[in-house]
């Protein structure tokens, strides 16, 4: 298994959609073959269409607010006394997280295919909120599938979805979290694929959805590359790009331009959700050695039992609370290009506290996992090392959880 240079990672799959011969694919019911094929053709055409690219870039700039800023966290760096810590503040994007890139592209695709309805899944509520925003912007009718447990714990985002005119469909089956929301959304699409477009909220699902999402979030690393050059005159010699990984859409977007670099120069570190310190449950299939399985139309490392039943997961962060992970990250793990680890709920909370104490930055619980790793390794590194954390979400949505756990607003 080897990564090819000079080709975007989203295109390094075989004819059946597998990365490294075993991750990804399209394990879908027959009914979805046609809509998936149509979408594949449309995307293949549009991504080469100059007009479409122009349109995408226009909305990325004028609607999403690209580029998001790249800042040094001076106080945190001084406090930890090791590597320099920087942040790519993707949470500045319209809506407060990276999910807006994928949502905007899907809305544009939906329009291009002449469909009037768009549906999507959501965990933390960001994917749902952004899809509802994009739907409103482009005049599409929108339905969001969300686990009942997540609806309770991410209320601010639910309020936003409703305000944007989207219908939230609560999912009561299974663990009532993201995994069930994705299943229910796919079921809905099976029944309505003739007039409805489906947006998968991360780099997961059948092959084409991994590609579209990765293509959309890649904007983050294009910006970062330019920002690095203007800040340091050239790409620095020692960089660590730290990103949280649930499905893995922000991590892929953060890394895509840097995959061809030697890992001694640019190390890619993915941080999964380790769950509560004392619990056996987690949402960390990559770093806690889950087996390969098929979930939501793709093969990836999946938290599951010996029989192939999908395990319940547990994490304080709804956006990372998912038993599977992008096939692209499985590929990056097996080729050893990226390193994956996890942070527990407690570590993420502590990181959130430390970052907000020292900096004018309010990372949500998802990127707080990435900050936990940065805080852990920074003191051991010298000041020539540049740690960059993708602060991909704003903690506004987590206010209830933070209040409960930390007693603060």
């Amino acid at each position, binding site marked *: 298994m080897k990564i090819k240079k000079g080709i975007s990672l989203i295109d390094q799959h075989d004819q*059946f959609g597998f990365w490294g011969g075993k991750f990804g*694919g*399209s*394990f*879908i*019911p*027959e*009914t*979805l*073959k*046609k*809509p998936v094929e149509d979408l594949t053709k449309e995307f293949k055409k549009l991504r080469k269409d100059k007009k479409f690219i122009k349109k995408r870039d226009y909305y990325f700039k004028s609607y999403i607010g690209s580029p998001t800023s790249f800042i040094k966290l001076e106080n945190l760096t001084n406090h930890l006394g090791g590597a320099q810590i920087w942040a790519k503040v993707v949470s500045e994007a319209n809506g407060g997280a990276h999910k807006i890139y994928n949502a905007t592209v899907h809305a544009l695709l939906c329009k291009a295919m002449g469909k009037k309805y768009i549906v999507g899944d959501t965990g933390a509520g960001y994917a749902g909120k952004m899809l509802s925003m994009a739907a409103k912007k482009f005049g599409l009718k929108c339905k969001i599938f969300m686990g009942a447990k997540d609806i309770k714990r991410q209320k601010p985002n639910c309020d936003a979805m409703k305000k944007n005119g989207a219908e939230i469909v609560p999912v009561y*089956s*299974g663990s009532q979290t993201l*995994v069930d929301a994705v*299943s229910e959304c*796919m*079921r809905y699409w*099976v*029944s*309505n*694929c*003739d007039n409805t477009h489906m947006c998968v909220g991360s780099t997961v699902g059948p092959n084409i959805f991994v590609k579209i999402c990765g293509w959309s979030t890649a904007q983050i690393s294009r910006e970062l590359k330019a920002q690095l050059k203007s800040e340091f005159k050239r790409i620095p010699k020692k960089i660590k790009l730290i990103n949280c990984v649930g499905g893995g859409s922000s991590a892929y977007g953060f890394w895509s331009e840097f995959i061809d670099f030697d890992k001694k120069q640019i190390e890619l570190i993915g941080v999964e959700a380790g769950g509560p310190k004392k619990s056996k449950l987690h949402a960390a299939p990559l770093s806690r050695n889950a*087996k*390969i*399985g*098929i*979930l*939501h*139309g793709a*093969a990836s490392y*999946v938290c*599951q039992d*010996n*029989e*192939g*039943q*999908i395990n319940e997961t547990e994490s304080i962060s709804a956006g990372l609370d998912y038993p599977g992970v992008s096939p692209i990250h499985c590929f990056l793990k097996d080729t050893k290009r990226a390193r994956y680890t996890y942070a527990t709920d407690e570590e993420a909370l502590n990181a959130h506290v430390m970052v907000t104490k020292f900096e004018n930055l309010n990372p949500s619980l998802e990127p707080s996992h990435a900050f936990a790793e940065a805080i852990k390794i920074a003191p051991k590194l010298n000041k020539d090392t540049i740690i960059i954390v993708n602060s991909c979400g704003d903690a506004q949505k987590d206010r209830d959880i933070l209040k409960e756990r930390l007693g603060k607003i």
Partner: protein
Amino acid sequence: MTSLINETFKKAKNMSRPALLTYTVAGDNTKKKSLEILKSISAYADICELGFPHNTPIADGGQIQTSAYRAIKNGIKINDVFAIAKEFKISKKTTPIILMGYYNMIYQYDENRFLKKCKNSKIDGLIVVDFPYPENKNFSKKCKRQGINFIQLVSPTTSSIRLKRIIKDSHDMIYYISMLSTTGGKLKVSPRKILENYFKIKNQNKSKNVVIGFGITEKTIKSLKKADGLVVGSAICKEISKSIKKRQNAVTNVTNVVRRLKNKII
């Protein structure tokens, strides 16, 4: 050598009626009960589909999800599914049994080991919901080598080129999904339209047995009796749920449903 599945369709055809196929979830609501249900309904059902339950069933509606969750909660394992099928085939040698489920279960069990176990348990056919053509080509060949019918699915969205290819590579039976829906959806297409599509498939190769499934209930079954076979699943799972809730005998109730279904098509 002709397969038991083929023979069964031939018998039904000789009686000028479609074959009745039932779907129940193995282990719903217990291992023992589901075997009893299977044995009892096979007095009326020509072919029994037995679902191996999965907890993330992306193509199943509420009724079958409920049955699957119930079976898993009661501790059903994949080896229990084989045990139920094997036991069933000991007493009902001439009734074909088809296992139906999701690919991850087969993948975790290992394809070859799974098929050996199928053969050993006298399984006649396999339906894998999320393993479409052409990805399933190799696996389908493996099934054939073991004398197991791999059943291809086709749907209203299947293009005509694709349909030709699927039929060409299919075994004795093809499953036509009546409409865009998960299992157990309300029939939202007219039976006339469904049959029109059905004959487009059937007329390509008359030697293939084509069955219709999804949305078939006591109300709708009669209108589709021109097909080679008709599958009823959710309506049966629903009856099991209802019986449990009312503390009634699920075996009797389900058998009554299947008997009534059969009476509508003879």
